């Protein structure tokens, strides 16, 4: 499977260095284009991310209320547990507790659920993309160094990967969260420390194949330094793989952030979808069957995680064409 991908990657010729550099980057761009043109699911994922990114960017404008402030009605009473207006039977008077102002109702202390949902996209995308970037960059650099240098560099880095594989992921984040102030960045740090392991291993094995190819020897003969060979000649060929693992990492990061917030290890001042679900869980929204509170955050998590999966699969199908035939 990997050999076939390699054959694709290495198939360009090896003219002068400057031209190769340009062509490698163009090849990378073309791979990215191919992923989203060929694969409708990957395109769907991209659109989902784009929409949520816009929502996150304009959250303060889009959200009708402050997500953290409990709201009062004109009489000065807290608007607790208000049902969304569309849950009222048609023709029925909008009874007490039903409100036209809140699309998804309010929480048990009177916070606007819809506004929380909109603000939650910020934490999800921030954690998702920064953790994915950290994982992809660290994994790629470690894979490149281990694969290119071999010897003791390789041994040390791959044993480090073994250690990272032996550390339980969620428990590790919980322990980290216990020692540092609660913050969504704990998830990003923990992911950066542990999850480069898969990316690093796969990229290392690809580099082992690439570095035997003619254009690498040619570069070496022409006097290019090791770092130049690694980052200018080899890196562009394996970058699509980094994107593949990066896309999956976005999905994992969003899921993980949600889980950690649900367990109560996130910053209570930052609204996230996981925090909303924890809030609902602890205030017995389940026993009341408050679906308007429980379902929307979960759906948002699912949509963004699926977007990451779909884009990752899109890369997989372009990079490993045998999967596509199946």
């Amino acid at each position: 499977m990997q050999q076939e991908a390699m054959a694709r990657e290495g198939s360009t010729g090896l003219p002068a260095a400057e031209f190769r550099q340009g062509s490698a980057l163009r090849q990378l761009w073309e791979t990215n284009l191919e992923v989203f043109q060929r694969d409708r699911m990957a395109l769907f994922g991209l659109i989902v991310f784009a929409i949520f990114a816009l929502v996150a960017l304009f959250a303060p404008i889009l959200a009708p209320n402050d997500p953290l402030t409990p709201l009062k009605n004109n009489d000065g009473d807290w608007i607790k547990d208000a049902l969304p207006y569309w849950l009222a039977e048609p023709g029925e008077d909008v009874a007490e507790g039903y409100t036209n102002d809140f699309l998804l109702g309010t929480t048990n202390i009177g916070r606007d659920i819809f506004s929380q949902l909109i603000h939650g996209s910020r934490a999800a995308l921030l954690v998702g993309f920064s953790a994915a970037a950290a994982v992809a960059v660290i994994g790629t650099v470690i894979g490149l160094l281990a694969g290119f240098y071999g010897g003791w560099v390789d041994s040390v880095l791959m044993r480090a990967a073994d250690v990272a594989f032996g550390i339980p992921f969620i428990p590790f984040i919980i322990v980290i969260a216990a020692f540092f102030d609660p913050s969504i960045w704990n998830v990003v740090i923990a992911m950066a420390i542990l999850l480069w392991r898969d990316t690093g291993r796969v990229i290392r094995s690809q580099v082992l194949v690439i570095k035997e190819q003619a254009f690498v020897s040619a570069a070496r003969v022409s006097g290019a330094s090791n770092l130049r060979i690694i980052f200018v000649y080899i890196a562009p060929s394996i970058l699509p793989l980094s994107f593949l693992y990066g896309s999956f990492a976005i999905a994992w990061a969003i899921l993980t952030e949600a889980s950690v917030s649900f367990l109560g290890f996130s910053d209570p001042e930052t609204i996230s979808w996981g925090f909303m679900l924890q809030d609902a869980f602890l205030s017995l929204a389940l026993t009341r069957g408050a679906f308007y509170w429980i379902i929307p955050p979960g759906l948002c998590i699912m949509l963004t995680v699926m977007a990451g999966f779909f884009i990752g699969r899109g890369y997989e199908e372009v990079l490993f064409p045998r999967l596509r035939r199946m």
Partner: protein
Amino acid sequence: MNRGVITYIAGRFLQSVMVLWIIVTLLFLLFRLAPSNPLASYIDTTFTKEQEAALLARFGLDKPLGEQYIIYLLNLARFELGDTFSYSGKSVLDILSADLPNTIYLTLSSLLVAYGVGVLGGILMAALRGSLFERVGTTFTLMTRAAPTFWVGMLLLTFFAFQWKLLPSAGIAPAMVRFRWETEWDKLLSPVFWRHMILPTFTLAVYLHGLPLLLMRSNMLEVLDQDYVTMSRLAGYSEWRVMIQTAARNAMLPVLTALTLGIGYSIGGNVVIENVFSWPGLGRTLVRAVQQADYPLAQGAFFLIALIIVFMNFIADILYSLLDPRVGASAQAQVS
């Protein structure tokens, strides 16, 4: 079993011990060099300097770091995990050994359901490849992998426990009645326990079945392309016999390796579900210990989970090398 294989296993075992030693060392550093004092939750503002010093001495925290580290390693090697802060009079080992079986029951039962459904589903998807059913089924499986497990658990709780009142919502026994099972056997033979296990098991299986299903499906498709499958088709065997007896048996091997790895990682990943269902296992204890700043307990729970993961990684490696002759050969070449 030839000598090469034994050398390989011994090498892998040593490597696992090394990995565990590094993890344990990192764990030690993490807990000792943490910004907050490990006894912060213990020490009252009313404590005198002497009382504080006595307390530090009791937990061995007055000794130099190097000496603490040696004591810590020796204690771990003897499975001596110390005393808890928050449960008075109980040792960490007492608590963890009560939790571990519950975590294992939940992990194994959910993996059993997930891999049963996943393997059969994968065969079905491979047999129906290209059909609408296959596309919808695969997309649905991807969706279950994208849904946060705790959310699936919350939805199932809402319907089955609260709306329809069919199943218990939390724990391993009713809270009102004082349930005491003398032995683990009594617990395992008790229908009450199994009733409590249904919802968490099912929740985990919803998530876990995706990996074996997708893996089985793509392995099946790969195997179905092979000559020996074509041969048995030509020999006139029925399609189902070709599918099950010839293809599925060969496609199973990578799924078995995934199952072995899955046991380790599920035990670490159950943390969230154990908290949703108040399941008295390692994960819930870990979260509680961290919340109550009970460092010995948190450290012990983390160590136990890491130990299981490293051990299962080791087993999966061995299994993989024994089942796949190519890996075995190259592994032997590496060792020798």
